């Protein structure tokens, strides 16, 4: 039977993917030339990008360890992508082998890759869903299988919200997750910003690169990012630049490029039902 001419197209590997570009920034090879080409242009616009990504990765690692220290061993990582290393389950299960991790991504390649990586890991799984549809995430088989929503969960939206436009109502999605998560749950956020942008309008050029890659980059102010924590109680030290969030190394050791972008962790207060 012929494929109907009006049928939707499948995966277009000629379109750069932010997941694979992220992997490229982190030195991975889970990427195609189209991803690398776009990523190279992004780096050209903003040479500090790989370091920022690495710093973001380090923040995530610290946040996971913080969650574990708080007794939170369930992780819901949305927009997980396909990075080479330092994934949530690696970090968490290295410290607490019983940690449960559910990854969520809307990129079919990232989902397929995660499935391959996680094969045989009984404590981790991947859901093909979109942050913008919380019910698709929360009612998925994997969440059902791996997470106990009566107990606290660390909701990881790391380097994700700057790809969600206001018209897609990220605040509503976060509120939907908030409603379904138990008290004691944590919200882990990092978000790009343009403060400290390199000269010659690097920020604008970076936005243009992502725009062309069909993944518009939404740059928000600190106040706007803080609003994502509505309902959550920010833990110390609040919403700060990536290296300043509970640092392992003295922040002054860091490359100056990485002080752009904010990171913070919120806690849902209240009593466990």
């Amino acid at each position, binding site marked *: *039977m012929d*494929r*109907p*001419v*009006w*049928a*939707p197209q*499948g*995966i277009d*590997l000629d379109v750069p993917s932010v997941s*694979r570009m992220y992997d490229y920034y*982190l*030195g*991975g*090879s*889970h*990427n*195609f030339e189209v991803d690398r080409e776009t990523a190279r242009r992004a780096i050209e616009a903003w040479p500090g990008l*790989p370091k920022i990504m*690495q710093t973001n*990765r*380090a923040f*995530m*690692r610290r946040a996971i360890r913080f969650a574990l220290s708080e007794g939170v061993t369930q992780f819901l990582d949305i927009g997980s992508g*396909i990075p*080479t*290393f*330092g994934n949530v389950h690696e970090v968490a299960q290295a410290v607490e082998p019983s940690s449960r991790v559910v990854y969520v991504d809307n990129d*079919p*390649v*990232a*989902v*397929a*890759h995660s*499935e*391959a*990586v996680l094969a045989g890991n009984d404590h981790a799984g991947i859901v093909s869903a979109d942050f913008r549809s919380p019910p698709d995430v929360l009612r998925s088989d994997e969440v059902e299988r791996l997470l106990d929503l009566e107990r606290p969960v660390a909701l990881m939206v790391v380097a994700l919200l700057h790809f969600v436009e206001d018209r897609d109502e990220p605040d509503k999605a976060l509120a939907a997750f908030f409603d379904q998560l138990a008290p004691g749950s944590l919200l882990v956020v990092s978000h790009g910003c343009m403060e400290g942008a390199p000269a010659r309008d690097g920020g604008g050029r970076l936005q243009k690169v992502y725009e062309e890659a069909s993944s518009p980059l939404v740059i928000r102010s600190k106040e706007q990012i803080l609003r994502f924590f509505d309902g959550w109680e920010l833990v110390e030290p609040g919403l700060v630049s990536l290296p300043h969030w509970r640092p*392992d*190394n*003295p922040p002054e*050791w860091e*490359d100056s490029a990485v002080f752009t972008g904010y990171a913070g962790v919120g806690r849902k207060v209240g009593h466990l039902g």
Partner: protein
Amino acid sequence: MTHSQNDRAPAVSEDDDGLRRFATVWARVVYQATQTSMTRHEFEEFLHPLATRLNDALHAQPFSALPGYDVGETLVAGHCTSPEALPQILGVLDSYLVLYGGGPGDLDIDEARSRCARLQHTVAAGFSRSLRERTRSEQESLSRAALAAQTAVEEALHASETRFRTVFKDATIGISIADMDGRIRDANGALARMFGRSEDEMRRRNVNELVHPDDAPEVWRLHRELVRGERDHYRVEKPYHRPDGTVLWTNLTVSLLRDAEGEPRYQLSLMEDITERRLLHLRLRYEATHDELTGLPNRTLFAERLERVLGSSEEERRFGLCYLDIDGFKAVNDSLGHAVGDQLLVSVAERLQSCTPGPDHLVARIGGDEFVVLISDPSGREEVTELARQALAALATPISVDGRELSVRASIGIVEGRAGDLDPAEVLRSADITMYRAKDSGGNRYEFADPDSDARAIDRHSLTNHLPAALERDEFFLEYQPLIRMSDGRVDGAEALVRWEHPVHGRLGPDRFIPLAEHTGLIVPLGRWVLEQAVAQACGWRERSGAGDQPLRVNVNLSPRQLHHPDLVPDTIAVLESAGVPPSSLCLEVTESALIGADEDELKPLRQLAELGVEIALDDFGTGYSNLANLRRLPATTLKLDRSFTQGLQRHPADPVDVTFVEGIVSLAHALGLAVTVEGVETEHQAERLRELGCDTAQGWFYARPVAADDFVRGWTASA
């Protein structure tokens, strides 16, 4: 740097202390070039065992550079994957390993440097080999993931396509998808079957070619709007040609499919075959709008068409209507039977159709023997007249029915005018009135509608309609005109005359409404009311009159319908008895024409009344076909000579012919034992002559006009 050193446990040996320092330097230099998410301290801990292995290798006897491979591989595994990291890694080895390291048996410095160089070579090779392997493996796993994802998407698509295909293929409604140029890209089996073509044939068609002459006027405008992207869908009933020459009728819904950018891409047509339903609908509609017998349009269709023609908004548009009724059709039905009557109607229908070939003419049968021809926008009165003339001519040729040659005569009422001047009901009423005018003029002719005739007829119509309510509301009243005994000039009695005090038209004489009441049958209750009133009045007069006086008689008119009413005798007796008036106080006036042709049975009620003592006067005598021979057998007691005979006596000298007539009739009446009353006496001379001629009683303005009962009592009963 010192910070991390302070956190560390003290070195366990001097060698190790040196390697610790080496690892610290190594970590500081390489850390910046790695992508690891380890902290620098962790990274230092990660490098320390590697430093130890390299130092051990450096001092081993015999020397082997092989551990360098492992170290290079481990560095890659620790995410030192940037090519920029390699010079940093090797640079620190080159500068510091020999310096910080140490071991059993001091090496010659040249030998140490040589060994260090060889270890760098293997580290670089291990690093490169591992990086290449890692890159390959990641590329492979990514490709596999991409393939898996694509397969999953394809499978999902395939599943959805299969579902869709099943829907598309098995749907009972026809589905086609065309591009924006109208080329049909896909069509399902149902559609192909509807069109009586193969699916491939359908795919070679262009929707823009699928024009049908019966397309609704707006179809292609809607389609153009859709193609321009101004409209997202439309729904119409649309016909299509089928290769076998038949027509496919569909309920068609066309929807615009846009791409992700909102640009029009395809037009999706969903169609349902409504040919059968439409045929059924048409048949039902045909049956509802056509006469079963003749196949002509019926009253319903005619009414629709008339409304459309009259409702036309076009300026100066005219219409013509011939309203035709067969003369004497009832007689054909009654004498030859309904079957013959029906055949005759069928033939009439055919003849009428033969005179009206154009689409501007509508011939309809709107009642038993009533036909109409409606002409849209005739050129003028002449065209309509010509049509009426042709219709009569067409019917004049004898029609052969059941072995008989029947000649059909008909009356036609013609209305011709400007659309918009009259509404359909007015046109029909006018046509009907006019047709009856033609019929009253003898039939087999046409007449033109005339506003004055219409007005009169409408007037009659209105009065007729209001008669029953008038009786209930007591709008009728009686006046009395004295009857004078000629022998002594005294009052003998009075004729009761009914009047109608109409709320709108004022006082109406009996000539305006008695024929209508007679026509509708209301004359029976009205007549009884008159009888009751008059008899009650006679009773009143009796009570007032002196003992020796001859009691006054009251004359009451009886219409033909009353005359034949079965309750005439009992009603009359009841009225007399209830008033306590002897029958001789009542005189019933019957027109001569009402009795003409009456057989004995029909005369019986009158005879019974006469035998009871009720006087019977023959009214309007001399105006009908006076049958003198008949006079003998009628139960009349009085002749009332019509005023036309006495008019000649008003002149001086009197008309000798009239004198002779009156003389003759009086002598004839007296010979038969009948009294003679004359009407219309207006002058003294006339009265004198009539008295000389032997008339018994007289009535007329010379004596008195009709007056109200009370006035009559004041003016006349005293003298009676």
